């Protein structure tokens, strides 16, 4: 099962989430050096809220703020189900 949400427009991101045997988070971001940890933290926190730990998440980011990353991830999760 796979869920995808978001766009590659400025300030947005595409989140792709799939079932996996372990937790994997991959981030490709235009602001990687500055915000990688913060992006990861938002993703981890949201996965925890949804009690998901065996998923692989790919975040392709164009400078999205936290609220956007969270929202796109939630939509991807809902679409995966």
């Amino acid at each position: 099962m796979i869920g995808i949400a978001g766009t590659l427009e400025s300030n947005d991101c595409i989140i792709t989430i799939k079932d996996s045997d372990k937790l994997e988070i991959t981030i490709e971001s235009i602001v990687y050096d500055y915000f990688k940890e913060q992006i990861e933290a938002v993703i981890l926190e949201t996965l925890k809220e949804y009690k998901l730990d065996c998923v692989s998440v790919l975040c392709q980011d164009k400078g999205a703020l936290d609220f956007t990353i969270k929202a796109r991830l939630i939509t991807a999760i809902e679409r995966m189900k």
Partner: protein
Amino acid sequence: MKNSLNREILEGYRPFKNSNDYLNHKSEYQKMNEKSQSSEVIFLKDIDDLFNNLIKDNMTISFHHHLRNGDGVMNLIIDELTKRNIKNIHLASSGIFPNNDISLIKAIENETITNITTNYLNGKSSELIGHNQLKGLIVLETHGGRARSIESGDLLIDLAIIAASCLDKKGNATGIIGKNACGVLGYAIPDLHYAKKVVVISDTLVDKLDKYEIDGKYVDYCLLVDSIGDSKGIISGTTNITKDPVGLKIARDATKLLLELGVIKDGFSMQTGAGGTSLAVASYIKKEMIRLNVKGSFASGGITSYFVDMLHEGLFDHLEDVQCFDLDAVKSSLADKNHLMMDASKYANPYYLPNPVVNDLDLVVLGATEIDLGFNVNVVTDSFGKIIGGSGGHSDTANGAKITMITTSLIRARIPVIKEHVTTISTPGEDVDILVTDRGIAINPKRNDLIEKLKDSKLNIMPIEKLLDLAHSITGVPKKIELGDRIIGLVKYRDGTIIDSIRNLK
């Protein structure tokens, strides 16, 4: 060693002190003798003729950048240098653009070009340079500083190559007419007067030019080629008013602020950068000038059609033009008697007598990649340390103008434009007065006079620290990133001192 702004610079160079320190060295400033004039001009047969007789290893060769992203001459010469395996050339071009990428990258990889001095660098070549592939250093000068360097002999040019859109039989040349007209060749004038040898390259020959800014008496050689490039390439995309609503909002607020400061009045003078937001400010100022029935004295800088229109509508008495950013400006430089040319030295050399034009400016509106809590501005590198531009006339105008205003959005793709310390300093904070962003305005605390005038303003004015906090509340706090540990270049201030260093990319 560290300079007065606490930036690490290489030993053996003069450290930046403050932006007016040049006044203390006026008596030391000695102009070299101009090259000797002669009415003789030799027309070279072809490019082989040029290279066989005039070009060899270890030379400093200069170019101007008036054809911007449409230049064909610099590429032609660089390609030939590489082909002939010439080594250790110091490229002294006043500007380098993406269309120079292919030729320049090959030349750097081949160690044909080992040193670069320029006022502006944009394109893939800056990545190569950032990864330490240039054997020597890259030096970034300002427009005024390059003129100073050339006139004083700090930058000695063996061969100046001047691309011109029209040439006559006596070696007089111009950029104003011809099939690839690009406007007045203001940046080429110091090269013309002080290089050891001067070659004019053109694609259009006439018997006699009545109006010309390149005086044939300084020209040694001429070469005709099929085409010097494509004049449509001088329109770079940064010379249109922004359509972005955020940019327009910034421009509106900036204009409101200027009205409250009483800047827009009869006889005032102004310059703007070529960015979309700066030009939007110009267009709102124009509306106010018409509403208030104000006539300004002059507008200066790189001239665009927007300022040509203002001249035609009688809003300014004259234009002082160092380069034409679009084809309407080119046409006007030929047709309008109040569209005057200024060379790079008259424009911005701090030692120009009696005063460079920048000192007469009431207002300059500029952009910034970054600005810090000390109001220091970076227009040289992006936030990752890669060279994406250069001071151009930024530090020159900021020092000369009575009011220096920076307009920028507060945040660009999640990165706050305000930092604790900018990645690279190109303009010192002492010369920067006002920052206007989409979410607030900050005034340099040094300017009590402006703060006093604005104390009853309804605009959203706050200390720059608060504006930074506001940015962080939206983006989160960005991690502090480490730059490379090798110094690969110098940012030279207009007085020849070093204001900051460029480090390698990680």
